[in-house]
């Protein structure tokens, strides 16, 4: 009760503050405005102002307010201060003065009017410069933003051998530019939203109007509008808020740092969500088979790409099921092993004190620990780590009769294939131990039980209302051409069915046939 009352009091205060900000109007007196600014930005010393008096008419006074860290000083000097000082144009008093300054004096691209301090505060905090004009009841804010940002680099998590090497960076306008320069069409739409009560982060929803599935788009906007958070720093904040199945460890919305990959998906009718301050773009709807796709698939020979994709699928199945299968065969179903292998396994196992299940949990646990350490550790210590890991896991554990040699092979296969599908690492981390647990109590029965439940769970998943694992139900070539394999480009004549309102990609067959 006490807590609640306390919170209510705080809420009231915050509301009052916000209302005050909305009601605070710009006054004709510069001094009054500065007093308010001083009050609002008290203790924030990077907010600066600059007083200007026109050299031809000393009654024309201006004050420019800006946030020192976010602005381009040269731009302010050349396009704001210089024209304001040197101009011969009379500004006058009253409603016209703002219009005159805006249209005839300032040399800036983006200028807007503001009459209350809410707009002004927002503008100053985002690197705009606010100009107060003496005798005017409105102020102007001019876009003078300049942030330093990383250069465009190839994203380390999505390296390709051949193909574009550009990646997004933390500047949303730059990211947007990367998309727009690839799609030179007015059909490419970009809607801007501000999310986060305190961070006021800019989010952009990009799509190609004639291709996008309107239902999915509506659903996305509805979900984005319902978000109430005080700040978002990364797309994952949004992903967890808007995804269909809240508790699934599978990824149901795609993320990428590659503009070429985003454009490819836009052209299939998908939607991209960019967020200021993060190089990661969210793409949706996201199909299960996209976990096994790589942007490189489309830039290399289609035989190579198809086989690689099947390998990735095999890798996922192996890394999820290999330890569980090993446990169930070694502990329950010896008949499945060829006799010579059975004997060798028995010889190896005879000197090990633990049952196969304990052994497997031990080894997989150690591997996960080493893997996690490898990610967290600074890169120059990584080498030492891998040596220790190899020695502990491989040689020493077998020599010390802690584990049997076949287990090392199983762990090695599991670990290696796990790296093949990084997009599914979350799901693998959750479901692998689960499978192992079931297999160690129930053998192949448990194994099949677990596998069936994973499959059933996968089938319930939706991505923005679209069935996540649509691949299973499809039989026609045009519908699976880009799922398990990557068909040659001249065969990909349609777009994925659920994703788009315009299915036909190529009207004419190859060679005009």
């Amino acid at each position: 009760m006490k807590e609640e009352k306390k919170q209510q009091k705080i809420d009231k205060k915050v509301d009052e503050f916000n209302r005050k900000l909305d009601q605070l109007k710009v006054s004709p007196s510069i001094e009054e405005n500065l007093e308010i600014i001083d009050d609002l930005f008290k203790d924030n010393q990077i907010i600066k102002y600059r007083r200007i008096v026109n050299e031809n008419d000393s009654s024309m006074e201006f004050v420019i307010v800006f946030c020192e860290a976010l602005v381009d000083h040269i731009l302010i000097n050349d396009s704001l201060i210089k024209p304001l000082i040197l101009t011969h144009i009379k500004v006058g008093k009253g409603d016209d003065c703002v219009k005159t300054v805006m249209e005839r004096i300032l040399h800036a691209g983006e200028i807007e009017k503001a009459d209350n301090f809410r707009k002004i505060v927002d503008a100053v905090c985002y690197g705009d410069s606010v100009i107060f004009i003496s005798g005017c009841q409105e102020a102007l804010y001019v876009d003078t933003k300049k942030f330093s940002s990383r250069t465009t680099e190839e994203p380390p998590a999505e390296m390709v051998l051949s193909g574009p090497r550009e990646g997004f960076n933390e500047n949303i306008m730059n990211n947007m530019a990367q998309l727009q320069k690839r799609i030179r069409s007015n059909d490419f739409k970009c809607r801007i939203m501000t999310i986060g009560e305190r961070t006021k982060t800019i989010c952009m929803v990009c799509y190609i109007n004639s291709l996008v599935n309107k239902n999915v788009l509506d659903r996305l906007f509805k979900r984005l509008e319902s978000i109430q958070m005080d700040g978002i720093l990364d797309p994952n904040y949004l992903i967890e808020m808007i995804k269909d199945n809240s508790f699934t460890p599978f990824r149901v919305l795609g993320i990428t740092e590659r503009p070429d990959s985003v454009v490819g998906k836009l052209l299939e009718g998908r939607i991209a969500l960019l967020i200021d301050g993060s190089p990661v773009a969210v793409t949706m709807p996201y199909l299960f088979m996209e976990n096994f796709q790589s942007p490189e698939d489309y830039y290399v020979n289609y035989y190579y790409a198809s086989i690689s994709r099947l390998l990735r699928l095999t890798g996922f199945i192996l890394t999820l099921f290999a330890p569980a299968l090993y446990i169930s065969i070694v502990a329950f179903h010896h008949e499945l092993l060829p006799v010579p292998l059975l004997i060798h396994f028995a010889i190896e196992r005879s000197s090990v004190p633990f049952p196969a299940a304990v052994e497997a949990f031990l080894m997989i646990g150690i591997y996960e620990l080493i893997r996690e350490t490898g990610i967290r550790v600074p890169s120059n210590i990584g080498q030492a780590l891998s040596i220790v890991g190899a020695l502990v896991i491989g040689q020493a554990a077998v020599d010390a009769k802690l584990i049997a040699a076949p287990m090392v092979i199983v762990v090695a296969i599991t670990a290696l294939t796990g790296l093949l599908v990084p997009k599914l690492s979350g799901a693998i981390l959750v479901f692998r131990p689960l499978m192992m647990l079931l297999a160690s109590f129930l053998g192949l029965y448990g194994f099949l039980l677990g596998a069936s439940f994973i499959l059933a769970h996968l089938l319930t998943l939706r991505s923005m209302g679209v069935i996540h694992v649509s691949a299973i139900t499809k039989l026609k070539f045009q519908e699976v051409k880009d799922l398990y394999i990557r068909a040659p480009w001249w065969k990909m004549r349609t777009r994925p069915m659920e994703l788009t309102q315009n299915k036909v990609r190529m009207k004419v067959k190859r060679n005009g046939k």
Partner: protein
Amino acid sequence: MKRAIVVFVLIFCLAFGGCYSYKGLDKMIIVMGIALDYDEQSQKYLATLEIVDIPNSSEKEGIKNKMLECEGVSIPDAFFNATKKIRSILYFGSCEVLIICPGIAQKGLKTIIDTFVRTQELRETAFIMVSQEEKAGDLFKKAKGMTSAIISMDIQQIMEQGSMLSGTIKKVKMYQVYNDLLSQKKCPSIPALHLTGNDQEKVVEANGTAVFRIDKLKHYLTPEETIFLLLAINEYGGGSLMLDKDGDPANDFCILVRKAISDTSLKIEEDKPSFGIDIKLRAVLDESELFNEKLKYEELKQLEEDYARMIEEKVKNLLDKVQKEYNCDIVGFGEKVYRENPKFWEKIKDKWFEIYADVKVDVKASVKITNINIMR
């Protein structure tokens, strides 16, 4: 709907999950082969189990075998008695070799086949053999493995591969004997094993076929006779066939059979069944009297003809012997009658063995030599 899916999944898993009784690999003794003897005096079964000697086997020294002997008034009793000597459980899942002593074979196969078919772990696809040594256990105890430290693995390989290569081994799996005994329309015939010398050691060798009348051992066929038995029953996998033309070994021919097909046909005339066996061979020439000389087309035709006559004669002789002397229907003529004319079989089944002894069999063979195996 959801409940239906869950029930389906549970049923699916139960049906395809196999048995889920936990057995640690390190806590069991892997039985590779069983040799079964019967002691008339004590009226007890004596089983010699060849097991993998896990404690003494290692990467460097390889796998070793060990014999586990146990006795009991019945076969399961013997196996239970074995567990008194060992700390682990016996695992029969990889046991593919079952050897019975002549004593048991003469007494009758029914009891032991029934027991082994009922044993859960032992596979019905295990090979069954008769020992020509007095004690079947001797095959394990006195012999040494040729290519593998485990004799049973050698025997298994001899059965699998040897039947394809030499043509003198009739491989028989347990379920086939079981089927024969159950249907009572065919007499089982099982390969025989004996010990033979090899480089001052004794090794196991396949040596012809044991012929049974219903379920009792009657006679052993020699390896050469086995060839013609296999040819007659369409189980010949390949091997070489000699042709002795004039008694002089220098002038012998030898062909390598690539493919052999035979077909049995039934004719019933005036309530008397008669059978035809049609054997077709495709072979290449392996050895010839005409060293370095071109074999003329006519000579080759003549050779094919000679071979065909030889095969016809040998198969006829063999069938005569098993019909009249031992009265064992190992070719399965009875089954043939039953399959083609069940009503007729019902009429004659009670006196089948009497009819069988005098049944007329017409053997026809044709040989095609496709290749003389020399580049000209």
